[in-house]
């Protein structure tokens, strides 16, 4: 145990975490150059494209230091706020953390909140300045930020570059010398912390864990405490580039278990594995993660409902945080109300449905879940996951919506604009701290629903990209919410309804109508787009009937180009959904999210 080091990496998206991790794997010969695809740890295509880690991963390295062999377990963490609970469990499995900061950009909000998590868990922090090879690096300034933040010595900050390999040896030495060996009692009852799980279509769910106390052996009868389920440890092992089976995983080490589990929801991140005989206590900190954002997902082609169910079930096998239940919409027919951890998670699911399952889907306006209280029973909240389910206003005592505490770190020049944005989004300023002379952390209480409605994009625009954002939920608060309906040629389209704050209804109604006018193509007849509260119309736009759609020239026998163009446009039409007499493109359903584009 004294030669085991468990560590994670804390970094903001794009700060070069994955590239630097690859260098560590190369330097320890865990992976050969030939095997190294770029960003080995992000093995989902989507992750590689977006340059972010969605699921956490783990990998074991062996490192010789002063003639002694050390086992280094790198536990990779997801890099997005939607997945902050997974981050917290990964951190809980470690004794040290590499804090990677991009020398050209400085510290970002995401990094800080994860860093605080790591400090809370008493992790040894190894500060690293990455991307030192870039001419735009500003090491002195960023070092100031780091010293301010964690109170380390300037000299302890390691200058590194994932690209050139600078500093990699120093990092490995620091891991061995500074990160404490895990402390655990080999003779105590087994307690292993699950920090991740992956789906394998042949072998079911593999759970990744760290043995906190005791040891686990192949063939042990084990119990997952939170779910109460019992299994046999059919195979256990350590995580090299591929899984390597072992007979035993000792105290302090990290490994995987395969025990014939078929469904991801049986393996909950944060749960404790113990033995059926002589069981241990659950490790504290377990939470059942609940979805934060909900949206309807419908097949564009109504015949594909069952295919969509299959696809969602398969996705759920390796993504337990996805929830779904059947729902039906007057406009869209049969589909599913899905729950997501956040907006990115929602986009990822939608994209995976399209790419991995070839589904063409319509995602409706996302919403958060509300608590509605009826006048006849004002004590019992009714959870509302879909605007259409909101009880009739005359019977409502009140509605509560979820709030978050948001931390935004930006350059001081953008503070004014960001404050305006947050206040416009019904935010309440809670704190304002100057981290350095020109970097400010703003803390706001904000309704979660406002984050769902084009907050990220606006934040990025007004701060020219120099703002980072992190949040966590802080409970429900009463709000004056009403249901805004959209009508196309007089027919209400339930999939376009949204719950919004009363004071914003008129403005939003107008914006949604004009956005829809942009997105709905002209058709054979005029299309009236109306926004309504109850029976009251508050905004209207008209898409005029099509009067000209022709390519006048078809010159020099170039038939192919025109045919291909029309064939392509025809394909695009297949992505439209007929609602009443109107053809509505897929993207119109998300129109409310991008009102200012």
């Amino acid at each position, binding site marked *: 145990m004294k030669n085991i080091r468990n560590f994670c990496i804390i970094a903001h998206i794009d700060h070069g975490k994955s590239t630097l991790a690859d260098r560590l794997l190369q330097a320890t010969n865990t992976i050969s150059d030939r095997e190294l695809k770029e960003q080995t740890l992000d093995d989902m295509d989507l992750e590689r494209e977006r340059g972010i880690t969605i699921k956490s991963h783990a990998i074991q390295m062996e490192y010789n230091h002063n003639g002694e062999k050390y086992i280094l377990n790198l536990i990779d963490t997801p890099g997005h706020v939607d997945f902050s609970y997974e981050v917290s469990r990964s951190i809980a499995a470690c004794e040290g953390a590499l804090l990677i900061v991009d020398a050209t950009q400085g510290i970002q909000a995401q990094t800080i909140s994860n860093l605080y998590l790591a400090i809370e868990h008493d992790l040894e922090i190894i500060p690293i300045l990455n991307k030192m090879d870039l001419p735009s690096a500003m090491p002195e300034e960023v070092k100031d930020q780091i010293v301010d933040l964690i109170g380390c010595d300037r000299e302890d900050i390691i200058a590194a570059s994932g690209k050139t390999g600078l500093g990699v040896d120093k990092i490995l030495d620091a891991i061995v010398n500074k990160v404490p060996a895990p402390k655990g009692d080999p003779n105590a009852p087994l307690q292993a912390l699950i920090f991740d799980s992956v789906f394998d279509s042949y072998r079911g769910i593999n759970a990744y864990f760290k043995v906190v106390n005791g040891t686990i052996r192949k063939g042990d009868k084990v119990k997952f405490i939170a779910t109460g389920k019992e299994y046999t440890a059919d195979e256990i092992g350590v995580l090299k580039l591929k899984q390597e089976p072992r007979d035993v995983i000792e105290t302090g080490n990290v490994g995987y278990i395969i025990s014939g589990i078929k469904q991801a929801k049986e393996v909950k991140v944060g749960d404790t594995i113990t033995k059926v005989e002589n069981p241990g206590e659950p490790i504290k900190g377990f939470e059942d993660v609940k979805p934060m954002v909900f949206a309807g997902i419908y097949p564009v082609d109504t015949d594909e409902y069952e295919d969509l169910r299959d696809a969602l079930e398969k996705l759920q096998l390796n993504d337990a945080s996805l929830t779904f239940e059947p729902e039906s919409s007057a406009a869209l027919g049969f589909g599913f109300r899905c729950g997501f951890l956040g907006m990115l998670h929602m986009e990822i699911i939608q994209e995976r449905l399209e790419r991995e399952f070839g589904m063409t889907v319509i995602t409706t306006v996302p919403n958060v879940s509300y608590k509605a209280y009826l006048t006849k029973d004002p004590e019992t909240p009714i959870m509302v996951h879909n605007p259409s389910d909101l009880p009739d206003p005359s019977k409502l005592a009140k509605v509560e919506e979820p709030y978050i505490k948001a931390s935004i770190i930006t350059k001081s020049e953008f503070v004014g604009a960001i404050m305006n944005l947050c206040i416009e989004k019904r935010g309440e300023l809670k704190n304002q701290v100057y981290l350095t002379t020109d970097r400010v952390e703003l803390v706001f209480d904000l309704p979660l629903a406002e984050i769902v409605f084009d907050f990220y994009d606006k934040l990025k625009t007004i701060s020219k990209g120099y703002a980072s954002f992190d949040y966590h939920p802080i409970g429900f608060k009463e709000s004056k919410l009403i249901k805004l309906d959209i009508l196309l040629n007089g027919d209400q389209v339930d999939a376009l309804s949204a719950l919004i704050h009363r004071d914003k209804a008129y403005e939003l109604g107008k914006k949604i109508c004009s956005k829809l006018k942009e997105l709905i193509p002209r058709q054979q007849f005029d299309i009236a787009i109306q926004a309504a509260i109850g029976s009251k119309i508050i905004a209207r736009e008209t898409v005029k009937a099509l009067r000209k759609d022709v390519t*006048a020239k*078809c010159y*020099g*026998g*170039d038939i192919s180009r025109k045919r291909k163009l029309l064939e392509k446009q*025809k394909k695009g039409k297949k992505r439209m959904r007929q609602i009443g007499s109107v053809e509505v493109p897929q993207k119109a359903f998300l129109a409310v999210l991008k009102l200012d584009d």
Partner: protein
Amino acid sequence: MAGIYIHIPFCHQRCSYCDFHFSTLLKHKEKVIDALLTEIEVRKNELSAPIETIYFGGGTPSVLSEKELATLLDFIFKFYDCSQVKEITFEANPEDLSMAYLKMLKKNGINRISIGTQSFVDEELRLMNRKHSAKQGISVIKNIQDAGFENFTADIIYGINKNYKKNLAENIKVLQSLQIPHFSAYALTIEEKTLLNKKVKTGEFSILPDDAYEYCFNTLHAFAQENDFLHYELSNYAKPGFKSLHNSNYWHNKPYLGFGPSAHSFDGKNIRRWNVANNHLYVKNIQKNTPYFEQEILTVENLFNEYLMTKLRTIEGIDFKYLSKNFPNKYSTRILEQIKLLNASWYNLNENRLNLTPKGWLISDFILKKLFI
């Protein structure tokens, strides 16, 4: 019967609406013509059908000297069966057509001129970045007639700016007074890679609303009807006996060979090919005998879609007998199902034919997207 198209990829200056392939580097003309001659020769066995029409397009064919034109025609007559040629069209810009040049064309066998007038209103010519004036356009048409060309056509582009009504009236007046036997009229289309598109983006130029085009199209159609022009294709109008043979063949599935950079060819069955749209690459690959064109083999669906696309541009429309002979029955059934969902004023349908009305032509892309497989 088959056609030959020769692309002359040079222009003196760029017109603001044009996205066709050409270069203003006239110094490369000689090399391109050499390559054209090689292409004409090497493809001599591709067609078995005799040639009916020859068409010089561009770019600007009127950059050719007499010697260049004569050599090109010599090669064509030498390597292809030209015993049945009926029409040799030559595209030209007004500023290039001196009386001497016209006589030269006549002498070399050109029997149809397509003149790039575009407008007879100076304001519109300036906006399109044309080199000639309205006055020049008018006098060149008189020259064409004086030189003895009976068969010629003028191009008109309409819907340029807010004065579109007045300007169209002026253009129609000139068409009428000059006794022009054929004209093509196109709505101004803003293509991606054009000067106009840049100006649209910066706000210097604005696109007219659809009803402006609708107005122009209807006005032209009415003018045609009142003046003995047949509106025989979406954008083409002819006095009796003056339809363009060459262009009509494009709509009627006839084979054609296209020579020169960016030129398109069709084997009359299921292969379309197009030469590289780059003068330098064209010359280089022709010289080295390396591939200078791409091609596609049309599927049944492609062929069906093309049939609809080309035939619905014409007044004849689609022929259900032809469809049932060449395509699965369900294709015709589909057309009948789909067309009935559309506004009845857009088409004429009987048991043999389906064609679009002028109203339908105006939104023919929309209709095609409904009818395509």
